Each structure stands twice: as structure tokens, then as C-alpha cells.
């Protein structure tokens, strides 16, 4: 007979009311104080395209991020298809959003800002907000990193993006949404105000850090273009319907004075293909025909949410 598992396997030191960590409090969405968006809007529409660089020699450690190289080196097919997004696809997104008067918050790898300065300028010229998306897609933040190394990555990323954009850069999205236990602390210490990695809520909420409060903003992976079209092998119509159904549900649950956030995460190499971009446009048109849709940046949403907590 087996000797069984070590004793600590049946010990539960975090078995208590609330969460099993202190990063944020347990909170029930429908029981929270309602949050009013500006102008009595019901749904804040937040579009977040990502400008990413997957180096040809990427190591993929400690795991391969979505979109990583797949074949033996040199994997030209995946490298160049990701780059398609930065050369072509993003301009279809810019066009689609500009025509509809929607600003975006664009998540940018520092490497993209250095490699393609005119691309960053094309986005900031449209009034888009820049969110930091780490150094590149081969620098994943994770528990195996030393705190000093991670701090260096964050410092470099923010220095590059703040200098290149001329913006304060208040938002952060970790490559592949991967963090160490210290990432939120280091980000708050670096002047970041909101974090887009956690997919546990439909609204902003407060996190505790060594440097005070940092806010999580909802940035779901479920309805992003990569998940539905690449990972799940679904059709453009399925992607459009997912966006529409997500929006309609938030619209039903909201009211003027009780807002929700409809966040759309996009990867230009996926949705920016000629046969796919129309699905995004159709979904946006569906949303914009409703009253009370507020197209906003992450910072605008955060500021409205924060002032409503007072």
C-alpha cells in the first residue's frame, strides 16, 4: 500500500473567508456600488490592439506565448505573418476605428516602438493611448525571474515607450498575461496605474501593492481574435457573434448610472487579414447603433471608475 502524500498536502493554511492571497479582495460583481459612466453611458467600449514583436530566435521560456515561433529555426512563416500585422493589418484596424470615431488603447512591445517608430506615431496621431506590453514577446515575466531583473525590464520598457510616445503610459499588459508574484508591486512603483492581465472581472477593481493601489481593468481573452479565430478555429461570423453577444449581455445588465466595460483585445496579424476585418466592423456597427455607448481609452475608464468610488 502507498505511503500516501506528504502531510502538507492535506493542510490548508489559506482556507479562510475571501481569497487565498492578499493581492485583492473577494468581491461579488452584481452586489457592488454601481458606477456611472460620463454622460449616462451604459457601456464603455474599450478597444485594445496589440503591437507585438516575436523575435526569430525566440527561446519561448518558461513557456511559448500565444503566437510564438513553431518550426525549426528559422521559422520564417510565423515570424513574417506576425510582422504582417505591424505592416498591414494594423492599418485596417486604424481605418475601421477612425471611421467610427473610436479611440483605442494600443498595447505596444518596447521593441516595436524602437524598430518601427512611424507605426507608433501613426497610432498616437490618432489620439490613441499607449499601454506598455513589455519588452517583446520573448521576455515573459514569471516567478523564476529575480526581482532586480524584472525591475530592469519594466524600467527599460517604460522609458522607451514614454520617450517614444510622449505619454505618461499608465497602463500595462504583460506579454502573454504572465506575471511573477511581484509584478504588480514593481509596476506600481514604476508609475503604472492599471493592469490588464487578470481576467476575473467585468469591471475595474483595486489591487494592493507595496506602492499603494493599482487597478485591474477587464481585458478578457475569451473573445479576443486569437482565441476565437486561431486557437478555437472558429469562423469570422463566430467572432462577430461573440462580440455582439458579449456586448448585448452587458447592455442588458447595465443602465445609465450602472455601467459596464466592453473590452476587445485584437491582434493585427489575426483580425487585420482582408477576409476577417469585416467581422470586426460589423460587430462595432452593431454596438454603435445603440444609445449610451461610450468609446473610451483605458485611462478614461479608470479615471471615471475611480471618481465614482469616492
Amino acid at each position, binding site marked *: 500500500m*502507498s505511503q500516501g502524500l506528504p502531510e502538507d*498536502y492535506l493542510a490548508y493554511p489559506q482556507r479562510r473567508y475571501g481569497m*487565498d492571497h492578499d493581492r485583492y479582495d*473577494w468581491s461579488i460583481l452584481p452586489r457592488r456600488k454601481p458606477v456611472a459612466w460620463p454622460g449616462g453611458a451604459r457601456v464603455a467600449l474599450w478597444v485594445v490592439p496589440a503591437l507585438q514583436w516575436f523575435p526569430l530566435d525566440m527561446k519561448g521560456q518558461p513557456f511559448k506565448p500565444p503566437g510564438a515561433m513553431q518550426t525549426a529555426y528559422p521559422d520564417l512563416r510565423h515570424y513574417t505573418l506576425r510582422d504582417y500585422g505591424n505592416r498591414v493589418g494594423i492599418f485596417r484596424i486604424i481605418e475601421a476605428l477612425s471611421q467610427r470615431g473610436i479611440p483605442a488603447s494600443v498595447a505596444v512591445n518596447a521593441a516595436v516602438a524602437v524598430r518601427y517608430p512611424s507605426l507608433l506615431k501613426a497610432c498616437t496621431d490618432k489620439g490613441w493611448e499607449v499601454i506598455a506590453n513589455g519588452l517583446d514577446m520573448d521576455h515573459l515575466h514569471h516567478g523564476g525571474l529575480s526581482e532586480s531583473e524584472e525591475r530592469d525590464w519594466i524600467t527599460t520598457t517604460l522609458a522607451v515607450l514614454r520617450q517614444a510616445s510622449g505619454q505618461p503610459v499608465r497602463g500595462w499588459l504583460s506579454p502573454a498575461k504572465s506575471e511573477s508574484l511581484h509584478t504588480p508591486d514593481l509596476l506600481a512603483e514604476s508609475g503604472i496605474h492599471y493592469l490588464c492581465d487578470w481576467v*476575473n472581472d467585468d469591471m475595474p477593481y483595486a489591487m494592493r501593492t507595496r506602492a499603494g493601489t493599482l487597478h485591474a481593468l477587464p481585458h478578457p481573452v475569451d473573445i479576443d481574435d486569437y482565441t476565437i479565430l486561431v486557437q478555437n478555429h472558429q469562423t469570422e461570423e463566430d467572432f462577430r457573434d461573440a462580440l455582439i453577444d458579449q456586448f448585448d449581455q452587458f447592455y442588458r445588465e447595465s443602465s445609465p448610472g450602472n455601467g459596464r466595460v466592453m473590452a476587445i483585445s485584437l491582434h493585427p496579424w489575426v483580425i487585420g487579414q482582408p477576409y476577417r476585418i469585416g467581422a470586426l466592423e460589423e460587430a462595432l456597427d452593431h454596438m454603435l447603433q445603440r444609445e449610451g455607448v461610450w468609446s473610451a481609452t483605458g485611462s478614461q475608464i479608470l479615471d471615471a471608475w475611480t471618481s465614482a468610488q469616492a
Partner: protein
Amino acid sequence: MKRDPGFYNYLPWDHRPVIRWPNGARVAFWVAPNIEFYELAPPRNPARAAWSRPTPDVLNYSYRDYGNRSGFWRMLESMKRCGMRGSVSLNVAVCEHHPEIIKACADEGWEFYSHGTYNTRYLMGMSEEQERAVIQDSIDTIKKHTGQKLDGWLAPALTYTDRTMDLVAEMGLSYVCDLFHDDQPGPVKVRQGKLTSIPYSLEMNDVIVYNVNLVSPRRYADILKRQFDRLYAEGEKSGTVMCIPLHPYLVGQPYRIAAFEEALSYITGHDQVWLATGREIAQHFNANYHDAFMAAAQPVGEAP
């Protein structure tokens, strides 16, 4: 290791005692929401890591947490609108972490059965004493927080030892949801006690449909309706069981809930369907058919 788990004899679909559900229902229909808590940094079971990424797996941890903060409440409202009670497959530590969820279920008259302590603590590798301690923890915690006697079992994250079925029967449980061999309940052979397998379903389970088969919400609704239609038709001859196992972090996503509710409303809108709980199905079967099914089953031959 065994070549056959040895839990049941062979009982072909076309040679069985006829099942009649209460009030002439054709299908005993039950919904089993899995109310779970996944730990951020659990101790490692030698046979399986809790997370696919290194600790902290922020993406996967927060995805599960979504179910408790947001998805559950959406799913609850949909079920209430359809007049459907849940049979909660419960990681019992949720009683301590999120008592508000337990209360919301209890207020609607839902059943609670055990899905282990946490979904990040697995049974494999446990000694008999350890496994008994886990089952006893479930019995005590559910009794303390809900007043209910624990009757059902679905092993945490579908992890087992060879003793699991014997132990839950010996400790007074009457049904398990871990066996996927049938569309009707059936006896489970155990050392002592009387144990029944109730059809739960991986095919209808939102984890399999969404995370493994990667289908769209509207397609899931079609799958649920097609499954029900056939079981309803066949149930005229002998009662069948349909279960929808749910996970609030999946079915409770905003873009999925309306399609689910539409399918649920379709099913509950039929006349000859028994809107049941796991416990009610097990009690009816144990009282009326368990022994007859046991007697009708054929011994299994020894494979060469």
C-alpha cells in the same frame, strides 16, 4: 493496476428492467454547476501539476476566479428564470472562502454534493487514511454550512485511487458522478454500502465543449437541444437521464449565457421532463431499480 475497474457488470441497453420516473416523466433532467476554488499556489501532487504555467499562473487562476465573482451570478439568474434547481458539485472549501455563493444556492433549494476540498488537490497518491480524511472533511463541511447530508460525489478534478468508490459508499454516500458508461443510473459494485452511478456527462460538460472541443456558444445550445430531444424520445420506452454539468467561469461568460439559457428554457419547457436533483434521482433509482439492475446484469468474461 487493474485491467477493468470492476465497478459494474454488463447490462446492454436493450435488455433492462424498465425505468419509470415520477409523474410519467420520460427524462430525469438535472443541472450540476461545479462551484470551485482553485488555489494560486497549492502543494504539488507528484502525479499532476495544478497549473500549466509556472506559479503564479495569473491567466488561468484569474479565469477560474471569474466564475465566482461574476459568472456564477449570471448563471444563477438564468437557472432561476427557467425554474431549474442546481445540484452543486462543490469544492467544499468554497463554504469558507465564498459563503455568499453557498447561501445563494441554498436559498433556491439547491443540493450540495462533494467535488473534493479544492480543485487543486488531487486524490491520486493518497493513503486510505488521507482519502478518508478528505471525504470526512466534505461530509462535515457540507453539514456544517448547509445542514445537508452529503449524498453524492464527483472526485476533485476527476482524480482517484482504486479505493475511492469503496470509501465513499462505506462512508454513507449513495451516488457518484464519475462513471460515463450509461444514459441511465446503474449500481456500482462496492465492498459495502449501496452506491449508484448517476449519468453526469462529459459530452454536455461546458469544460469539454468549450475548453477541449472549442465550440461556439450557439453550437453548444444546439448540442444540448439535440441531446435532450433524443433522450426525450427514447424516454417514452424507459426513463433516461440527462445532466448538464456547468462551470460558472465558462457558461457564465457574457457572450455565452444567452445561448445557454435559450437551450435550458427549451428543455424545461417540455411536459414530460422531471426537473430533478442528483439526490432525488439516486433515491428514486435506489428504492426501485438498483437491485433489479444488479440482478439483470451479466457477469463480465475474463479477457485472454
